[in-house]
């Protein structure tokens, strides 16, 4: 088991290298560069730059160098902890994303915990009480959850909160804490705001997970080992939780791998609607403005999260399922 984890960890740098190449070249793929779009922006506002200024700007950001050199400067900087400067914001990227990254991870974790702790019990109850009232109730709930786009839920809740309670549920902080330094009061304020977006984002995941859990468990409940556990004299709840639930959860655990990055990209619209200071909207803006170093860093962080997510789910799965442990 430890060996397996070490093996996977050793693969990490290699994967990161490959992903960094991909990230860099995908970001470079669109025609033009930041300076081109900067000039266009200037032109739109009526001003312009002469050729010498443009060259100077290109040189300043190293955009005149061959791609390969640009890539190694970029990666080299990151290895030294220097993520470079955002062309668009004219600020160090590290500074820009630090807090947003933390908030995104917090929101992701909260969403994850809410959706799993709702979905697993719902799936278990629906499956063990198949075709009962409660099963139908959850089935309807799940359909609604899957069918309603999350930004829609967000809009409806925003409207309800505003028109009935007069409160604004956007953002992750009250106005007085937005730019305040971290303190206990700010953390409490964050928790007060975090639950709603987390719940909105979790709703969708809960519905999906619960449906899969129900289906998996229904399959497992008819397996002979369940009957054998009954024949041993185990009580129904105990045996259901020990045997079929364990086997029904395993396939779900393997979805954690792509859950992390999916949550980040999937939440872009909700984050925009709710005006959340998370990474998603930042990526969107950096891409439209061709702020390629910022976009590159964010894409790379996504890749890193995907790798970490897969690692976590693989380790969890190996821990839960000896058959996978043996293969590894």
């Amino acid at each position, binding site marked *: 088991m430890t060996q397996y984890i070490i093996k996977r960890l050793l693969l990490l740098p290699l994967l990161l290298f490959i992903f960094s190449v991909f990230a860099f070249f995908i970001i470079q793929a669109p025609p033009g560069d930041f300076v081109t779009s900067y000039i266009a922006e200037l032109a739109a506002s009526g001003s312009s730059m002469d050729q010498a200024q443009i060259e100077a700007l290109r040189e300043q950001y190293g955009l005149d160098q061959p791609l390969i050199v640009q890539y190694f400067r970029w990666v080299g900087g990151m290895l030294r902890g220097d993520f470079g400067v955002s062309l668009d914001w004219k600020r160090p990227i590290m500074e820009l994303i630090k807090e947003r990254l933390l908030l995104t991870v917090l929101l992701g974790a909260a969403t994850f915990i809410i959706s799993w702790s709702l979905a697993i019990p719902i799936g278990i109850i629906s499956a063990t009480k198949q075709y009962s009232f409660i099963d139908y109730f959850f089935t309807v709930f799940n359909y609604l959850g899957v069918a309603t786009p999350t930004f829609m839920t967000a809009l409806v809740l925003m409207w309800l909160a505003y028109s009935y309670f007069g409160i604004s549920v956007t953002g992750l902080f009250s106005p007085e804490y937005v730019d305040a330094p971290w303190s206990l009061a700010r953390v409490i304020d964050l928790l007060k705001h975090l639950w709603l977006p987390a719940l909105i984002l979790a709703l969708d995941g809960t519905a999906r997970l619960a449906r899969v859990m129900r289906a998996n468990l229904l399959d497992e409940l008819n397996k002979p080992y369940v009957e054998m556990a009954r024949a041993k004299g185990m009580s129904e709840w105990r045996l259901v939780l020990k045997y079929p639930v364990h086997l029904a959860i395993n396939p779900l655990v393997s979805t954690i791998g792509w859950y992390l990055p999916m949550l980040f990209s999937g939440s872009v619209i909700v984050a925009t609607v709710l005006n959340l200071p998370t990474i998603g909207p930042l990526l969107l803006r950096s891409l439209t403005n061709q702020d390629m170093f910022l976009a590159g860093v964010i894409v790379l962080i996504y890749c890193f999260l995907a790798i970490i997510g897969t690692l976590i789910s693989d380790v969890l799965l190996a821990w839960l399922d*000896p058959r996978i442990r043996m293969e590894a």
Partner: protein
Amino acid sequence: MTPLLSVRNLKTHFFLDEGVVKAVDGVDFDVFPGQVVGIVGESGCGKSVTIKSVMQLIQKPGRIIDGQILFRHHDEAGRETIIDLAQLDPHGKTIRSIRGAEIALIPQEPMASFSPVHTIGDQIMEAILLHLDVDEEEARRIAVERLHEVGMPNPEQRLNAYSWELSGGLRQRAMIAMSLACNPRLLIADEPTTAIDVTTQAQVLNLLLTLQKQHNMAIIFITHDLGVIAQIADFVVVMYLGRVMESGPVEDIFFNPQHPYTKALLESIPSIYAPAGKRLPTIEGSIPHPFSRPSGCPFHPRCKAFMPGVCNAAIPKLKAINDRQSVSCFLYDHAPAIVEGS
């Protein structure tokens, strides 16, 4: 001697949207302490449903709708009382204290009957901890002893093995060890040897017989293989379409069969005494679909001794025809029978 288990007129039906499947429709038999009772019958005749009913393991949409399953139960204080298992709540405490402790099961598929993600030691010890008042260490000791008893090599190490790491024969031995964990007085083996090869089959049968003598248990042994019945059973129950056609001591069933179905079944076994080149007789017709049960005696459409107006009009009751055998057939029975629909 009084029987350990008496099944009387047991009826277990499945209520499907398409109709009612009368999987077991009036079954009677007794099991005496220390006796090996073999239940034979073609696939789908209700053998598994019968024994699942005895253990109250029938799941929706199935239900025991009639009959008695009388069992000599030892309660916590050690007193012996006769209880009707058919009346018990399938999730209740009483039946759970009987399952695994007094009546144990060896299932049809040993591979699928162990959880693949729990060690066999975990699963055997669980059976022990459920019923015996022992700590984990003692449970482990008993588990090792049982594995040793069933001829498992290196029992200590095997506690940490998973079922899929064992060969078919060893897996079935582990299953037997688990079933015997609490010294049951009645062991129900549902075709325990179908999933394993012939040589291993013989070893497992011998093992079961040895253990049966050591523990002085009664066994209900289910199979569709008359050869296996001949090896292991003291008493035989022949089933067809959810009913008992004939029952009696093994010698009588083999050498003096009475029911036309039993006779047909025996004729269809290959014999080395038969003249070479002679075609093996088979039972004519095929087993009817569960939804379209024949009226009257379920076997009448395939029966050589079919009596029109009698066999298809009413269901014959299982009656003793001498002091050993019982048969449900109008050839032997002129007393009033169960009239259709009653």
